[in-house]
């Protein structure tokens, strides 16, 4: 092989002596400084191995001389972020929630913080877009069982729904009219017919007329004589287009027969005031938030009348 080495004439360079189908390779010398840069990279690699965790063992890589770890890096970043947020949280703790709209910047920060907290604590039931599901209220709309102004939202989130061990909790209870025998199945059927006329889903019928009398005797205490509900007791408005469990005959019949018992944790047992305040601000910002103080429970009629551009069709 070495015998094949020859000096290539045009370049004056020695060949390496190999030949493949007439193709030869020049043995051009490497510049010496190139070699030194190679040694420098080797030195760098050794240095790197010394200061950073590099050599794997059964329990992860022991952390080099610098004791660096990505977990610690993350913790540091998070701590730095927490420190940045501190003044905002302090300001929020010191501001009553009803005063927030007067401080638009703080409000924006509260909404952003609330959006983050919502993703952790609330999406399991209300969904990541806060659109709810059957039995879990949609927080984007303008229908509120207990009220949609900031202070009310904050209280609802803090004290939760139907938490018997928590005294301040929101608690509304509808009798299981059918199951407990307060109403006979035929009567339940009649009340169902009447309830459906309230939202304009059905016209008046003989059954509905019978149901009207039963409604007056059994339901108006909470739902009011016109069926518009009451936020004081958390009774839903039966005249609008929004149904927590559904507005079809079957579902309404079931609701009247067995009642419903939706729950939400009392979040002040789990979260700090600032987080709850931010959550309230976020929920309020979703589009259905109301101004304080909560207006009389007649939202559908009021908003429809004030919005000339739309042709409200009452029920849905």
């Amino acid at each position, binding site marked *: 092989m070495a015998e094949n080495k020859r000096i290539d004439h045009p370049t*004056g360079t020695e060949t390496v002596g190999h030949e493949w189908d007439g193709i030869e390779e020049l043995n051009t010398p490497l*510049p010496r400084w190139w070699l030194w840069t190679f040694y420098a990279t080797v030195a760098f690699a050794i240095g790197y191995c010394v200061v950073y965790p590099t050599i794997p063992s059964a329990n992860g890589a022991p952390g080099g001389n610098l004791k660096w770890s990505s977990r610690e890096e993350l913790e540091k970043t998070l701590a730095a972020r927490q420190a940045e947020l501190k003044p905002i949280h302090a300001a929020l703790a010191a501001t009553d929630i009803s005063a927030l709209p007067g401080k638009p910047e703080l409000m924006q920060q509260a909404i952003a913080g609330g959006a983050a907290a919502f993703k952790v604590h609330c999406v399991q039931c209300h969904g990541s877009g806060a659109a709810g599901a059957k039995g879990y209220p949609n927080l984007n709309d303008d229908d509120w069982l207990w009220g949609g102004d900031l202070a009310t939202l904050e209280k609802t989130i803090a004290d939760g729904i139907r938490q018997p061990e928590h005294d301040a909790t929101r608690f509304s209870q509808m009798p299981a009219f059918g199951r407990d025998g307060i109403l006979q199945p035929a009567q339940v059927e009649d009340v169902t017919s009447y309830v459906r006329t309230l939202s304009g889903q059905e016209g008046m019928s003989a059954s509905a007329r019978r149901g009207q009398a039963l409604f007056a005797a059994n339901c108006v205490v909470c739902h009011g004589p016109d069926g518009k509900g009451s936020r004081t007791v958390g009774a839903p408005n039966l005249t609008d287009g929004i149904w927590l469990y559904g507005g079809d005959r079957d579902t309404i019949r079931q609701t009247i027969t067995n009642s419903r018992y939706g729950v939400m944790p009392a979040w002040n047992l789990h979260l700090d005031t600032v987080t709850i305040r931010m959550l309230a601000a976020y929920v309020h910002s979703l*589009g259905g938030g109301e101004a304080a103080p909560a207006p009389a429970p007649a939202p559908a009629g009021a908003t429809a009348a004030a919005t000339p551009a739309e042709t409200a069709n009452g029920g849905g």
Partner: protein
Amino acid sequence: MAEADPDITDSPLGQYQKRKSVFPKAVDGTFRRLKWAIMVVTLTIYYVTPWLRWDRGPYAPDQAVLVDLAHRRFFMFDIEIWPHEFYFVAGLLVMAGIGLFLVTSAVGRAWCGYACPQTVWTDLFQHIERAVDGDRNAAIRLQNAPWGVSKIARRLLKWSIWLAVAMGTGGAWIFYFADAPTLMHDFLHGTAAPVAYMTVFVLTMTTFIFGGFMREQVCIYMCPWPRIQTAMMDEKSLLVTYRHWRGEPRGSLKQAQAAAKTGAGTIGDCIDCNQCVAVCPTGIDIRQGPQIGCITCALCIDACDTVMAQVGRPRGLIDYVTFEDATREQAGQPTTPVLKTLFRPRTLAYFAIWGGIGLALLFALGNRTRLDISAQHDRNPLFVRMSDGSVRNAYTVKLRNMESRPRTVRVHMEGVPQASMWLGETGSREAASRAFEVKLSPDAVTKLRLFVVSPAGDGSRQEFALVVQANDDAAPSDRHDLVLERGGE
């Protein structure tokens, strides 16, 4: 040519090669003066540009050329580029690439010879070297001299000047990225950002090492341009060429006289004075033919022309000649006029593409709006049914005010006549209407949450548009088409 130089083929080559220091001799001539001029112009542009001021009013920086990474803006005199307009920068880079094709196919490695920072700074460092160490011969003598007081003193002086130039070079760079006077003040007081010091340090060291010690090694071993440029040249590209058919066989004036007397063959024009080798900044011998080490700085042309003038022979023994002309000249055929070589289909095509992109960029620049609207429909939930049965859609609207002054703009809806809208932050459904007005901060994006409500429909979607018009503008400047969900069962 290679055949004429037997000792190269004899020299044994090892595995590694030590760099041979090159001490180019000072030279004067047409190309040297051109190089001086280009050096003065390019270095002036580089050092002075960040200090130019440009009045943009109270809301924008007053630095003529500024790459504001923190705020993601690029200012260049009257032009302000936003991140979404980065295609202008991309266009300029494409133009630079095609410009390199154009120049290389026409005049070979002219970029390397005259304009490349590596060449310009190496040239500058070599001038400094000659000022301190003396011209070629003195410099070589000093190099070979044993280390003594005088040698150490000279080396320290030379390196200090180099280092000062290198620091100036590295220092100038950072001023392109922040307000120059402020940064200069902070830098000197030690309060500038660490990244500024890091950048200056790195660029100082690279300038010092590349310009002072690596020089032609960068061109030969580190830079990709020479290989790319070699691929872009053809037989009609200008090359620094030694007319060996005119110069060989070389011989001194005495040999030439002797040969003429005895009639023992003729001696060529090259008097073998080695001046072309002495002045070459990369230390090569162009008489061996075109080679990768030649950056076509043309200093050997100047050197050879000077010699030819002294011995009374015509200039151009070394000259810019195309490969095609070289062949023709040897065969005694007429050569192509220089203009015809420069303006040939290939260069004209490159020029057309280059100019076309340039014109397109200018056109785009003239037609771009400085007030944009874009909106994104909420996906989750897609729409919300309201208690009165109507349907609400929500959008995130971005208004881009790209002028450096605050503006009040009006946004209105086109289409879906039954719908009305309000802003999440400031409006309410009670005050919903078909248009809203907002004050936009100067040179900023304003993000708004927009609610649009309309009576429930049959589930079909409807299209509409948001149109933005500044109150001080005569016509709308931008629109964004959107979809409104009508919420069927």
